[in-house]
């Protein structure tokens, strides 16, 4: 919303520097995007009169003009087709900066110099709207009014001696979408309430009812519909002051009637619409619901299909306007219009918003109505418009107003407890201070009962309904910065939530192990999102197909990250990500929202070298056992002793050589090498290993009891078995544990050998065993017996042969 300083001052003068004004209004809740003087951009631009026009001798599309600027006559080469002698035009003089360069894609400004164009000298430029950044029209030069005086500065011609404030308006304050609304806020600074211009209307004897009737069938959605009629208006361009005001506020002038309705809307916030009475069949207006599917052409020429529930303004036969959003082409004001009907209504906000959303239209009118216009301001706006029409377009105002307003929306009365103000704000404000503050924004005291003061709230303040809304107004006007900050008044030691999360512990652990944390987009291509092996959740309104579904696994995101890094030459990667994955699940798993199952996971990715380059060793690339080791590290770090790996014989999902990870007897995740096919999909040439595991499994809520330190020495024995090459080391280890007595403390594989010293199909697996008793030092005999049991057990269970023992 653009607000102009000169326009604002019509409702109450003030002398505050524009930047200071912006700063002080900012502290009242208005948000300023910019504050700018309008004239500074147009130094060196003047009104010129085209005196002559000749064809350029060496270019068909160019003409050579002489232009009078009052003091001198300039020769200017011009490329516009519409330039003609006698026109008043905008001339940029040599040295002036043209705001927009039409021939530059970025539109950057450029400085005019004296140039020769195809051999003809040109001392200046005749400008188009687009070059002046005043509009979009770039097809031809801008033609000014005939009465423009050559030599007059552009700033003076266009009334640019003004300051424009560009505001971002929060949805709770539709009243700020007008100059009067902003002027009311300035009253907080000046102490003087602003005034709208007084309207005096001269009505004819002919009653409006003779030519117009209004029926409201949609009373719920149209609480108020008012209209007036003026006969015999003369349609034409608006006077310069009106055109300038609209243009400076960012609107495009059209004709006097439309311009007036826009002007009044920007003045007091009430959208208005004017119909050509001759086009209203039967002289009737009926407000009713649309028939779903009816085609309708709005006055911008666009065709729409009306949705169910749309409220329409109709005449005796057909729709003529989409209520509160945009008028129809079938009844709009044209040069031939003589009699007009002006509509000022109050529409139910949610109805307008629904229809505007369904139609995909957002207009100045719909924005105001859907946030809430002022039901109490309808009549003023209607009369103000009628007054301006008669002043600027002539005509005779018919007697009376049609105002269908069966249930008057009155000013609200809101009670406020003074103690509650201080209870919420932490202030020590007293009643007179509160009453004075609220008075500055038009909220007045209407009664007192004990500590409770009743306040009357004007109808344009749609956001003030409850006590807390009044408290906010008090805080705002009093000043947030003046409320002294306190601390710790309510400190409580109770705290049901932990200070350190499981995610943090995992992040610390992985960063400590040399992994870098990545964060990737949860929204993915549906194909990639489905790679986790579940049906992904689709996004109904995705930005594009690359982000149309939610990930079911963290792996594809990290593979994309790996591919991007490989392309950048980063070949060694150790990445981890902790994030949510999503899927639709109709099973019994507990869910927070409908049938959407959301799970937090940790994903690891390894590729490239196993260690940084070092002179002492040739180095090697990572393999599956690096990944397995990192998972073992995590399981050990979280003391998850009851965990194990399950080998899958076939490849599963994204990986080959897949190992399932089980924690406390339930599946927690997997690790493996990304299969060649999947690597191909991501453009990854080098081997990549991943692990993905549910964060839920990393629970460590059992505090273990302390185990006394052993008082007797450990005895170490190494045993090596020759077994069939297909027997997993883990089965041998399991048998060792089963066969041994409680004297066995630990088992570790320390060597695996397969080669010429062994028969084909055999391998040797060597274990280090540690034995210890908590009660005594073990004798050789006891140790030998313990080892003997282990050896016998393995030999029996796996057909193993003892290869060596020491």
């Amino acid at each position, binding site marked *: 919303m653009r607000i102009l300083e000169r326009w604002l001052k019509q409702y109450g003068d003030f002398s505050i520097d524009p930047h200071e004004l912006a700063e002080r209004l900012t502290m009242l809740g208005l948000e300023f995007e910019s504050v700018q003087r309008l004239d500074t951009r147009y130094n060196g631009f003047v009104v010129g009169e085209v005196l002559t026009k000749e064809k350029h001798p060496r270019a068909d599309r160019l003409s050579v003009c002489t232009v009078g600027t009052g003091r001198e006559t300039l020769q200017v080469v011009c490329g516009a087709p519409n330039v003609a002698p006698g026109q008043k035009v905008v001339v940029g003089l040599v040295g002036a900066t043209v705001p927009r360069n039409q021939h530059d894609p970025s539109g950057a400004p450029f400085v005019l110099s004296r140039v020769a164009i195809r051999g003809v000298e040109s001392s200046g430029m005749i400008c188009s709207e687009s070059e002046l950044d005043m509009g979009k029209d770039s097809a031809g030069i801008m033609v000014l009014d005939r009465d423009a005086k050559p030599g007059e500065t552009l700033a003076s011609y266009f009334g640019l001696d003004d300051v424009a404030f560009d505001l971002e308006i929060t949805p709770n304050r539709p009243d700020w979408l007008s100059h009067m609304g902003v002027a009311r806020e300035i009253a907080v600074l000046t102490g003087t309430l602003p005034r709208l211009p007084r309207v005096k209307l001269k009505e004819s004897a002919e009653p409006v009812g003779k030519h117009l009737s209004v029926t409201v069938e949609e009373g719920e959605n149209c609480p108020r519909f008012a209209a007036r009629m003026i006969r015999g208006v003369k349609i034409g361009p608006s006077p310069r002051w009106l055109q300038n005001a609209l243009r400076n506020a960012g609107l495009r002038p059209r004709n006097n009637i439309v311009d007036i309705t826009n002007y009044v809307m920007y003045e007091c916030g009430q959208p208005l619409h004017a119909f050509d009475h001759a086009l209203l069949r039967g002289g009737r207006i009926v407000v009713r619901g649309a028939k779903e599917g009816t085609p309708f052409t709005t006055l911008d020429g666009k065709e729409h299909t009306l949705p169910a529930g749309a409220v329409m303004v109709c005449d005796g036969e057909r729709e003529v306007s989409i209520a509160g959003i945009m008028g129809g082409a079938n009844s709009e004001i044209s040069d031939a219009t003589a009699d007009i009907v002006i509509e000022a209504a109050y529409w139910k906000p949610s109805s307008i918003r629904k229809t505007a959303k369904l139609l995909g239209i957002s207009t100045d009118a719909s924005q105001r109505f859907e946030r809430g216009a002022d039901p109490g301001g309808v009549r003023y706006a209607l009369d103000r418009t009628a007054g301006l029409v008669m002043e600027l377009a002539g005509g005779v105002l018919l007697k009376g107003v049609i105002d269908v307003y069966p249930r008057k929306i009155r000013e609200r009365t809101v009670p406020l407890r003074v103690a509650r103000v201080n209870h919420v704000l932490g202030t020590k404000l007293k009643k007179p201070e509160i009453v004075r503050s609220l008075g500055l924004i038009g909220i007045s005291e209407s009664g007192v009962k004990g500590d409770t003061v009743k306040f009357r709230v004007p109808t344009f303040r749609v956001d003030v309904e409850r006590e807390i809304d009044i408290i906010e107004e008090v*805080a705002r006007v009093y000043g947030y910065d003046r409320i*002294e900050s306190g601390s710790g008044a309510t400190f409580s030691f109770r705290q049901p939530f932990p200070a350190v999360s499981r995610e943090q512990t995992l*992040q610390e652990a992985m960063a400590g192990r040399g992994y870098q*944390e990545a964060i*990737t987009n949860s929204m993915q291509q549906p194909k990639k999102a489905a790679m986790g092996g579940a049906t992904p959740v689709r996004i109904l309104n995705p930005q594009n197909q690359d982000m149309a579904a939610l990930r079911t696994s963290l792996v594809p995101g990290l593979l994309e990250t790996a591919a991007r890094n490989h392309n950048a030459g980063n070949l060694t990667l150790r990445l981890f990500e902790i994030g949510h994955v999503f899927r639709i699940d109709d099973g019994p798993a507990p869910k927070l929202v409908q049938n*959407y199952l959301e799970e937090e996971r940790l994903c690891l990715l390894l590729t490239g070298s196993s260690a940084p380059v070092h002179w002492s060793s040739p180095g090697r690339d990572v393999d599956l056992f690096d990944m397995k080791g990192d998972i073992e590290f995590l399981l050990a770090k979280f003391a998850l002793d009851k965990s194990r790996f399950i080998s899958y014989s076939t490849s599963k999902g994204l990986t080959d050589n897949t190992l399932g990870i089980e924690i406390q007897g339930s599946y927690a995740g997997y690790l493996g090498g990304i299969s060649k096919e999947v690597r191909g999909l991501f453009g990854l040439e080098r081997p990549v290993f991943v692990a993905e595991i549910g964060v839920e499994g990393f629970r460590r809520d059992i505090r273990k009891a302390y185990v006394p330190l052993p008082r007797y020495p450990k005895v170490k024995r190494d045993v090596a078995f020759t077994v069939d090459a297909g027997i997993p080391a883990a089965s041998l280890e399991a048998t060792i544990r089963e066969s041994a007595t409680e004297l066995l403390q630990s088992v570790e594989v320390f060597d695996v050998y397969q080669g010429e010293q062994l028969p084909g199909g055999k391998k040797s697996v060597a274990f280090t065993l540690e034995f210890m008793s908590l009660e005594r030092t073990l004798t050789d005999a006891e140790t030998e017996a313990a080892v003997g049991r282990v050896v016998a057990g393995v030999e029996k269970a796996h057909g193993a042969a003892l290869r060596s023992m020491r």
Partner: protein
Amino acid sequence: MHSEITSLREEAENAIRTVTDARGIDEFRVRFLARKGSIAALFDRLKTAAPEDRPALGKMLNELRSAVQQMLDEKSGAIQAPASGEAAPADLSLPGRRGFIGSKHPLTQTLDEIRAIFVSMGFGVADGPEIEDDYHNFEALNFPPDHPARDMQDTFFLGPRALLRTHTSPVQIRVMEEHQPPLRVIMPGKVYRNEAISARSYCMFHQVEGLCVDRGVTFAELKGTLIEFITRYYGAGLKFRFRPTFFPFTEPSADIYISCFICGGKGCRLCKQSGWLEILGCGMVDPNVFRSVGYDPEVYTGYAFGMGIDRIAMLRHGIDDIRLFFDNDIRFLNQFRQ
């Protein structure tokens, strides 16, 4: 036997030279020193030697055993730690064995710092789902259906009344549904908005939400708490201001700005010439929000706040393109070592 001892010694001296790794060390030990190794075999044969020769031979064998043991010890020491002691290579300027250096994502680091401050002020940490329902994301937070306030946050929809959360505020509702006051909690997490992707905005980003509910919590305390946070996080000496604004779920609501730490408030590109940086939105919990979770707004008051982690990290590190966070180029990530 005397000569056998001598030749075994030579054999050991030759063998130890070829040992280069732990496996070799082991093989060497098995061959010479194990209970069934060559030296043990000679000790066994001591019984068969002439009794008068036994003491001398025994002494030789003992010397051999300790000499071979010493060879082994030196070798294994050299293999395990070549830079230690006498076996060290001459050039100590060679680099040591460095592992890879990991790091947490810069957004995680920023969150860690923010969280540490609030935790030290008595806040706990809670989280919630990223797929939300309309009720928790909007309705319970006092966004009426068909209200323009919903347009403030462009939403990705997933199904009837299901969406990707547009802010972390629904976690407030979930926390209050599960717990009774007093509450002091922060709620970090990912949020999603259907906004055009550019250097300044991404369709997914991170927020930290805060909530404090108790008897007698005031706007003054909200100010005190957040000023303390700002001072600890951004450092003392910054100016700050609280400006009225609108959020459906708080009233009164405020945006907090700090004086720009690049230009000191004079105006620069970062602060768009305003001298101020917006860093936090906050306000007193709206009574309608309390009603939706069954708290009595006459008994309890509270404040809530929220900030964008991505934006804070960008300001903090001078990062001019938010997309860098999600490209995860390790040359970028490597710059944020702690």
